[in-house]
């Protein structure tokens, strides 16, 4: 009996190890693509957040986002274009893997740039179903290694007609803030089709699905993202327009000086 148990355990462990290796291989392939053919230095885009309230009614927020990556650092500056009440609000972040990001917020009402704490990352981004942290995670996940999260392959599933690998990620870093993440990566293009972020509950805290994948040069981009918060029943649709890569955005765009100007 003991021998049987030991064999079963060994089989299970080797299967798990194999699943982990497979998952890591897939993620490394994706990482390799991101660092080679899909590599970009900077981007600019307009994002429209259509927030659908649980109790009915919607709101639309438009944001201009600029991002630049260099020397392992990701700099992002975003300006709210609409609605009018919060127009001119700006957000600046410098993120480096393994370190809490430096973040500043410019509120036109205060006419001041304010440094904001990392705990604020848990706050909703413009009232949407995404938090500042979620936005940051989505951007940095492709570069994760085993030091950030362990990965295991859970099988294959079809998402919106696209055959996808189902990979479970178990974050190791506390600042990631989720206990586990399920990731559906398209088998052909290795583009995330769906993500589920879990905290302690069995139900996901966030469910993100990506649609309308188009190539911009060699870089595939999901032009529409739906974000659900199952526990509250709210939903946000994010649409991208005017996306441009590698325009040579200068470093001085990512400064408090520009933040105060409100993108003008």
């Amino acid at each position, binding site marked *: 009996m003991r021998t049987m148990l030991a064999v079963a355990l060994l089989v299970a462990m080797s299967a798990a190890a194999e699943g982990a290796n497979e998952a890591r291989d897939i993620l490394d392939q994706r990482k390799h693509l991101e660092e080679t053919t899909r590599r970009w230095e900077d981007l600019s885009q307009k994002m429209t957040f259509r927030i659908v309230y649980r109790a009915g009614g919607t709101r639309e927020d438009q944001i201009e986002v600029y991002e630049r990556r260099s020397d392992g650092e990701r700099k992002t500056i975003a300006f709210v274009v609409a609605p*009018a009440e919060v127009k001119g609000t700006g957000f600046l972040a410098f993120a480096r893997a393994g370190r*809490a990001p430096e973040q500043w917020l410019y509120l036109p009402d205060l006419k001041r740039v304010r440094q904001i*704490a*990392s705990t*604020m990352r848990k706050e909703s981004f*413009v009232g949407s179903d995404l938090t500042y942290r979620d936005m940051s995670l989505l951007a940095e996940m492709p570069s994760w290694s085993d030091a950030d999260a362990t990965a295991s392959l859970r099988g294959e599933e079809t998402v919106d007609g696209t055959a996808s690998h189902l990979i479970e990620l178990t974050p190791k870093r506390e600042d990631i803030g989720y206990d586990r993440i399920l990731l559906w990566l398209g088998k052909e293009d290795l583009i995330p089709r769906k993500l589920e972020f879990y905290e302690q509950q069995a139900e996901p805290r966030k469910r993100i699905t990506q649609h309308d994948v188009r190539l911009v040069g060699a870089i595939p981009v999901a032009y529409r993202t739906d974000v659900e918060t199952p526990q509250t029943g709210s939903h946000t649709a994010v649409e991208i327009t005017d996306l441009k890569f590698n325009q040579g955005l200068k470093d001085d765009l990512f*400064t408090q*000086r520009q933040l105060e100007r409100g993108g003008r």
Partner: protein
Amino acid sequence: MRGLWCAGLAVVYGATALGSPLEVPGTAGRIEAGGYLDGLAVAPTEGGPRERPQALLALSFAAALSDRLRGHLALQSAIGGPFEGGHPGVYDLVHAFQNRPIHLEASEAYAELRFDQADVLAGVQKVAWGKLDGIPPTDVVNPRDYHDPLVRDLEEAKIGVPMLQTTWYPPDLPRLGVSGLRATLVYLPIAVPSRLPLIEERWFPPSATPLSQVVLPRKRAERLIQEECKFAVTLPGDVVVPVSFGTLNHRPPKGFDDGGVGLRLGGSWREMDWDLYHYTGPETGPDADLLATLRLKGSCAHPQRLALRGDAVLEQAHDVVHMTGADWATTMRGAAIRAEAAVFQDHAYPGLASDLISPEAVRRLPLRQITRTLFERRRAAVPLGDLFVTLDSVEWGVGADYLVHGFIPLLQMQQTVLLDPAPRLLISDPETRFIASVRRLLFQERLELEVRGLYALERGGWFVLPRASYRLGGNLRFRLGYLALGGSRNTLVGQFGNNDEVVMQARYSF
């Protein structure tokens, strides 16, 4: 003026319909318009003077004329509010007391020239110095409008000042870990005072109101008359001098050296933001002199017909203040921390008008000299002393906010320490104030619940303002709150103890 409001509303409609920047034909220029229409009503619950509902229209235009040249114009107009009587008009930049129940104001109007490493801004501008919440000690460049000092947003209450502002952005110093460097020089050619409430208004400070009558003891009055008239008189009782009270504008001096200069040097070092400041220029806080004049009717020939009355006038005053300060902000263990300190020379601090005409103060007055002048000229100035006392001081504060379970509490302590001996003032020495607020966003930021308040430790003055804001769509916001004030009447806040009120506000942004 009503026609102007109609035109303004037409612009609102146009700006709303436009929805996107307007291209200037034949050029690369474009103009963006925006603004808000604000309705404010207060319902007093403890008495105090009334405040009419106010409608305020704010329009702003930003024109990009080229890559380098920009223009900014912000206009503001309002009907109603705290004013009593008065006439419609355009706010000027030189008078402290302006009674404009319908008014127009160019709150900002400036041109901006952008270079790669420098900006030059010229025109009427507002600048925001300091990092603390509320009124940061170093934020002294712009005066404020005090017609509604607690409910109105502090930055909205700032008055634009003509200035030339140049900022140079030197390159980062990576070896020293210094980045985001900036050096700003501001030159203010003219002095612009704070706008102070008028006597009939809800937010006129009771501490600035002198007594309505002064009593001169009978024996002392008899002696003074005897000295002047050279014969003895017998009065039926104490001499009661009725005192009228009013306000008076007094234009600031216009000399070349009556303006101001300011310097700001800032940057980031090791994830900490910092600034150093200096300002020498016109006092931008409230500043006024209490002037008193006695008038005499009758003469020694008919001592029974002698009649005395007093006129007290709160006159706009002008002083020069020097401020040297620094601020600092960082994040630590999930909290955002800010600190600020400023050393002032000749900063004006308010005293109590009643102290200047108290029996002790009257006893100290040179009554013989006043009496002689009265009999000679029928009127005599009474040297009451300073209502606003200019003193050297240190103002500093530290504050932190932290997100916990969706609540964003903020706690800040601010202290003013006077470096000179001072008479009794509306602030104590030291004056320690705790400012706290808690904010919670609900229903995907549609509903915001907020409580903010202030407590002055030594004297016990306080206010608390809980309020709920509800956003309808992206343009309309309703706000309902209750302002409660209390504590000693001899404090900055406690003197308004009768002004508790329900505050209702609606804002349409476009």
